[in-house]
């Protein structure tokens, strides 16, 4: 590099920086254009439904439509896909740069925001707004209820479903299991015939553990365990023993510990595995050509006489920040936006267009001819359940517990610890980090 080129490079830096600044201004302009009024109120929005997130095709445009429909409100939308939003929100909040409206999980990942006053208690807003009366199904606010306050509006639900490939059951002359013994028999038969019984990864296995356990429990009893009032006992022990047994029998594919959900579902799609237990968020990715063979049935009962149990609840919420809450104009605008995103209309679109169940609203309406048939089955499965309980993964455990709970179940599945050790260890963790959301 001679003198000339060096000078040149020294010259080019400011040029580049200037262009970068212009780019930045252009970006700012890009954010504001399309809005008629100059004095429009600006709301910063942060949400995670972008890219290939199943709900993105509905939620992303919903924000944009709101922006267009309200000439007096101007949305500056930022996104961070999936789990990334956790870090993005955390850094923004800790730098006092919180977005005005944002989506996030319930208590399990938002607890410190509630505690710290970064997310305000909006129970007054909810009570004084007649539009919200009866809008959400019962228990919807549980994950955002914290020590007497309510902090957000539910936007998305989750539910876990048990899917069987009936054709494969016929082919191997196995009866579709209704209880654990039959399930074990089915697993053994498939295994002996060289078929991988479950298209599962370690998450599926953990959900199975949870279902086997929660058949013995009502929602209230599940809460009592999470708060540490009532230690885990026999029910968890038996469930742990059984999942471990399933793992030993070879119910799960090789490598299920590190498998992505997308890889696991492929075993079902390829007709290599007859059974599947997963969250409804994956249902949109079942192979359409397989649909006719697939049936959603109640999860096998741990023992006869127990209620058919579906694990379901609300997993995603929309919040406003404390700064937005304290500014009356912003509060009003943010509230409008929150209600719009949480509305049954968006719920319907999610079911019809995104092929994911959204059961957060009390009245779930959709055009059956319009949707993926497996979703209709999942919906009926959820409706017909005798016992609907929330998931520990999604709702009731404090985040510290969740961090220990996942590897602990992995250890159990690998046979590193006994079911008794698992139960003891769970009780220890809960003692250390009890759920305190129901304290007054």
């Amino acid at each position, binding site marked *: 590099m001679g003198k000339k080129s060096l000078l040149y490079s020294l010259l080019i830096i400011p040029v580049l920086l200037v262009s970068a600044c212009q780019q930045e201004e252009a970006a700012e302009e890009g954010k504001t254009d399309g809005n008629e009024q100059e004095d429009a109120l600006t709301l910063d929005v942060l949400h995670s439904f972008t890219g290939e997130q199943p709900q993105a095709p509905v939620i992303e445009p919903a924000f944009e439509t709101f922006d267009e429909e309200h000439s007096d409100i101007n949305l500056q939308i930022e996104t961070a896909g999936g789990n990334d939003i956790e*870090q993005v929100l*955390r*850094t923004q*909040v*800790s730098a006092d740069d919180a977005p005005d409206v944002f989506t996030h999980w319930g208590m399990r990942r938002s607890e*410190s*925001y509630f*505690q*710290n006053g*970064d997310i305000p208690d909006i129970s007054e807003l909810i009570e004084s707004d007649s539009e919200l009366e009866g809008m959400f199904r019962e228990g919807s606010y549980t994950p955002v209820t914290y020590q007497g306050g309510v902090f957000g509006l539910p936007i998305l639900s989750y539910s876990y479903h048990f899917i069987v490939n009936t054709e494969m059951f016929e082919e191997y002359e196995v009866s579709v299991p209704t209880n654990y013994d039959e399930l074990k028999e089915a697993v053994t038969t498939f295994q002996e015939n060289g078929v*991988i019984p479950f298209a599962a990864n*370690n998450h599926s296995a953990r959900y199975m553990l949870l279902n086997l356990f929660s058949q013995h429990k009502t929602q209230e009893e599940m809460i009592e365990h999470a708060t540490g009032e009532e230690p885990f006992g026999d029910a968890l022990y038996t469930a742990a023993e059984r999942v471990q047994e399933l793992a030993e029998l070879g119910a799960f*594919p*090789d*490598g299920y*510990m*590190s*498998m*992505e959900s997308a*890889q696991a579902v*492929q*075993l079902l799609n390829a007709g*290599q595995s007859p059974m599947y237990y997963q969250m409804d968020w994956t249902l949109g990715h079942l192979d359409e050509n397989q649909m006719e063979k697939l049936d959603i049935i109640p999860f096998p009962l741990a023992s006869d006489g127990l209620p058919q149990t579906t694990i379901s609840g609300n997993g995603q919420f929309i919040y406003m920040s404390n700064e937005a809450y304290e500014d009356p104009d912003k509060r009003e605008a943010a509230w409008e936006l929150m209600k719009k995103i949480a509305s049954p209309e968006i719920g319907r679109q999610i079911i019809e267009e995104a092929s994911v169940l959204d059961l957060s609203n009390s009245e779930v309406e959709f055009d059956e001819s319009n949707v993926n048939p497996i979703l209709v089955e999942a919906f009926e499965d959820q409706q017909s359940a005798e016992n609907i309980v929330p998931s520990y993964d999604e709702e009731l455990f404090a*985040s*510290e517990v969740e*961090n220990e709970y996942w*590897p602990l179940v*992995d*250890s159990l599945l*690998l046979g*590193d610890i006994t079911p008794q050790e698992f139960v003891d260890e769970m009780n220890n963790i809960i003692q250390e980090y009890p759920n305190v959301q129901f304290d007054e």
Partner: protein
Amino acid sequence: MVQQNRWTLSLFAIPTLLFYLYFFISPLTNTLFDSFVEWDGISDKVFIFLNNYMEILQDPVFYSALLNSFYWVALVITVQIPIGFFLAYFLYQKVKGFRILRTVYFIPVVTSSVAIALIFSFIYDPIFGLLNNTLNIIGLGHLTTDWLANPVTAVTAVALPFVWNFIGLMMIILYSGLQTVPDELIEAGEMDGVNARQKIVHIILPSIKPVLTICLVLGVTYAFKQFDYVLLLTNGGPVHLTEVSGSYMYNQGFSENNYGYGNAIAITMMVIVVGLAFIINKVLKED
């Protein structure tokens, strides 16, 4: 030597220093300070002084992660740098087709770790995967395993994409070093009739020592800091088996929001790596 005003030299250093102090060192001191607190990023910081460090000393997962990191370092020294060196050496010799070779060797370096992890997950997959299927075809079916979960293979399996990814990098650094070896030196050696091995050991390697040091230090720091392959392939699992110090730091600090603890791990790692860099410098200088 003509004596010039030495102060003009500061014009070369000061802009960089100011920039570096403001945008790197000062954030770094925040990190250092935050390693003495308990903090989840949102709530108030609680000053706990050395407690995070005491906890690290008693944390078995940290030790196993550290051990894995040292294993990665060993792979850098025994596999990555030697392969990188030979590739660079053959390219330097202008072996036939070296232009295309050079470009293709470079592909993994420019490929994002997302892509490389993706490929390896398809190679290791116990059911669809290339590795197990190939073993079955060539009649070594008994060797098939779940590569990323089997305690014997998992750590190596996660390290391989990293090793491979950076071979090309080592190659270009060493290649640039080889350019500085004076031709006369090699010619003189050839006239004396040294064989290929002697030429490498006695002429080439001593001449490129500064670059070798760079490679070693970079390799060691990468081995300690890299975490994306672990995150993408196993997320440290099953049950922390494949965790390295970089991924453990990231998981603690950002997935589990033990921000203070994560920072303490970072500072501890920094001290270890500075120590290693010091040793590398010492060893290669005294030689």
